[in-house]
């Protein structure tokens, strides 16, 4: 039994550089970085010093508020460097990897026979608890709380996103073990959304003990936040947890093998990617380890861990984020086009609106770059944003204005509990007024956290 959810509004970005369904080499980097900044709501307390030996799964940091939440090393090796930023903010712990990775053994477990407390304990100790995200606010899940339900989106519709049906095809057992473990943590069950377009061939059809949903539609149909809003919207006072399929498989792997094994197939994508394909890598792998898949000799490539809408710009010296299984290489669009806005045709520019003629060639893929294509303005075109936001009775511009005004009551009214910045990323993309909508929403969420604490 599955529920069908058809989402009609949305937009699939026609950006060039999709990863071919083949796995290139295993990228084994010398230095692996663990970044506390990947985890929203995590205040790090260091547990290691430079020179310490760690195994994959050894604790490296603990959360200052709830000490049981740990971040653990993704690889075995020696702590090489602790990188701090302004005001000594902890940015990265760099671990020099051993030649063969040794894992801390947590012992194989059968989640079905464990108590909720034991599951919680194991997840915290292994560092995989940090993969659970609480909504509202998109912060670390609180181990002391019980969520209304847990939601998993088994596919991503983000631009050029890794195809989970390809990358996690052989991980069905691990995913099942992960589901069984998480099911212990909530009475509301695990909601599992698969892509309706490929549901007949999808390997995830066989996952059991879940509330299955088949979701169809363009991006952001694959965003778990959009799915929640269409399945069971979050009300004031409720919390739900979400976990990506990638980390759900890692959780299952922990229960099946007793190891924290975060290796993943990473999609190397984007218009600047050479031979875009999948490689196997760990989170924290530096971008330079992907050399050969990009050409930054002119210094005009932007390195994004994640997708072009919500990913993080990490720079060539940065590394792959904990939650990401995609790297996008983009061209920095600093070129200035003469009278660009007035040209009747701009064949190499995409617009979701009909103000240009790109809608005449629907199959075309564009080499998009990072140019803003305009200057910041006040909100003018009012009926555009809803076209890419498939939540009914939702008013994005009103929510954004409430966030700008810092008006808690209005933010509640217009649904701040239901969305994260990533859900409004497309609104930001199509905005002719070029507002940084995701940042505005994030500021609103930060204010809510501060005021509601």
């Amino acid at each position: 039994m599955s529920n069908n959810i058809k989402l009609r509004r949305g937009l699939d970005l026609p950006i060039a550089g999709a990863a071919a369904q083949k796995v290139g080499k295993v990228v084994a980097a010398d230095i692996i970085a663990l970044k506390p900044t990947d985890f929203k709501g995590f205040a790090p307390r260091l547990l290691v010093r430079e020179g310490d030996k760690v195994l994959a799964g050894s604790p490296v940091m603990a959360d200052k508020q709830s000490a049981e939440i740990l971040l653990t090393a993704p690889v075995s090796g020696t702590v090489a460097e602790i990188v701090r930023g302004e005001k000594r903010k902890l940015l990265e712990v760099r671990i020099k990897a051993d030649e063969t990775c040794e894992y801390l053994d947590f012992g194989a477990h059968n989640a079905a026979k464990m108590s909720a407390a034991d599951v919680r304990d194991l997840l915290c100790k292994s560092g995989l608890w940090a993969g659970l995200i609480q909504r509202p606010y998109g912060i670390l899940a609180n181990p002391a709380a019980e969520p209304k339900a847990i939601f998993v989106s088994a596919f991503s519709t983000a631009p050029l996103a890794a195809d989970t049906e390809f990358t996690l095809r052989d991980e069905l057992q691990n995913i099942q073990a992960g589901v069984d473990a998480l099911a212990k943590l909530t009475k509301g069950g695990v909601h599992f959304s698969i892509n309706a377009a490929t549901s007949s061939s999808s390997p995830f059809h066989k996952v059991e003990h879940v509330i299955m949903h088949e979701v169809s539609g363009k991006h952001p149909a694959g965003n778990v936040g959009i799915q929640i809003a269409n399945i069971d919207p979050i009300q004031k006072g409720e919390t739900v947890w979400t976990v990506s399929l990638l980390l759900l498989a890692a959780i299952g792997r922990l229960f099946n093998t007793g190891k924290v094994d975060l290796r993943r197939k990473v999609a190397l994508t984007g218009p600047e990617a050479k031979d875009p394909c999948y490689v196997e890598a760990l989170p924290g792998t530096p971008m330079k380890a992907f050399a050969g898949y990009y050409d930054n000799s002119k210094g005009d490539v932007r390195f994004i861990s994640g997708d072009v809408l919500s990913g993080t710009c990490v720079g060539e010296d940065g590394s792959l984020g904990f939650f990401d299984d995609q790297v996008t290489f983009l061209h920095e669009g600093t070129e200035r086009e003469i009278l660009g806005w007035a040209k009747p045709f701009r064949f190499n520019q995409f617009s979701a609106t009909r103000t240009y003629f790109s809608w005449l060639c629907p199959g075309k893929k564009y080499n998009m770059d990072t140019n803003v294509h305009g200057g910041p303005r006040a909100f003018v075109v009012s009926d555009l944003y809803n076209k890419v936001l498939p939540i009914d009775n939702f008013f994005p511009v009103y929510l954004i204005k409430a966030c700008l005004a810092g008006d808690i009551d209005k933010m509640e009214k217009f649904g701040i509990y239901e969305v994260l910045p990533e859900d409004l990323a497309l609104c930001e993309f199509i905005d002719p007024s070029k507002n940084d909508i995701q940042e505005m929403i994030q500021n609103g969420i930060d204010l809510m956290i501060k005021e509601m604490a």
Partner: protein
Amino acid sequence: MEENKVQPGLFEKGGKFGFLHSTVDAFDTFLRVPGTVTRKGAHVRDSVDLKRVMILVVIALVPSALFGMWNVGYQHNLATGATTGFWGTFFYGFLKVLPLFIVSYLVGLFIEFAGAQIKGEEVNEGYLVSGFLIPLIVPVDTPLWTLAIAVAFAVLFGKEVFGGTGMNFLNPALLTRAFLFFSYPSKMSGSETWISLGKGQMIDGATGATPLSFIGDGFDALTGASVQYGTSFMDFFLGTIPGSVGETSVVAILIGAVILLWTGVASWKIMCSSVIGALLVGWIGNVCGATDIPAYYHLVLGGFAFGTVFMATDPVTSAQTECGKWIYGFLIGALCVTVRLWNPGYPEGMMLAILLMNTFAPLIDYCVTDSAIRRRAKKVKVA
């Protein structure tokens, strides 16, 4: 190390002429798309920007403007008995209308630039459209000094005091016209203003009233009164009648409407519901015997078509919610025809209908969002 110090450019902030930053930036980005790249959030952005949106509205207005210029000459010829060829007719109108454009843009853009300069912001493109609209909705013989004062008033008090384009709640172009109408009524209505006659060329019996002024007198008066200037539905539709410069030709306006709807710049919901509202009230007027003018005549008379297509659909001052747009448009159409039929003092209701609904648009939106959110909460509780 002195030579390594980067000097700010002549017009950049901190440079010698840094105070002109906004102005220079406006011309610079007008000529070349800015080279700025995304700092945060989505790394790629749609190629559409406000300049593109605004230029499309201006393009949609061009047919009305061109026809308006020709019609000014044509009406002049009818009134004075002069005969000129097509180009002569057009050229006469062109010379008459051009000063309106120049005054509108000079005054409006000056205030916009000055405002942006003072606030240190980029110049907003909104006035590109407003400045083009204003000459099209005033009578051709509007004295230029009154136009200048009206434009200054509308841009300053209708827009800049609220924070510029996007923050205003009244349509600045309509505010200009309303200001002219209430401050200089003798120059804005009656039978002398609608046709450009030129000096000393008045001919006996020539009346410059628009057909709309006869709307209170019934169908026969409407179709019989200004025999000289066009009497049939077709005349009204083609626009060979006296009136404000750009509002007379429904054909030209429809071309603009197609451009706006095709590119998705204007809301079809507002246009559609406005027409429905006008037809409904026109029909009620027929049924209850208030008038014998068929309802569809209202669509081609006066400023209805122009207002519906170019004014009511202004995304800033119209209702912002989808459901609100239906209500907003419907009330504009309905109010406009109501004023035409039941108000003995003033034959045209479009300007005031739109301005009135501009002020009510936030209230409509409030009701729509409020009820939608309440419905949503109820649905969640049931489920």
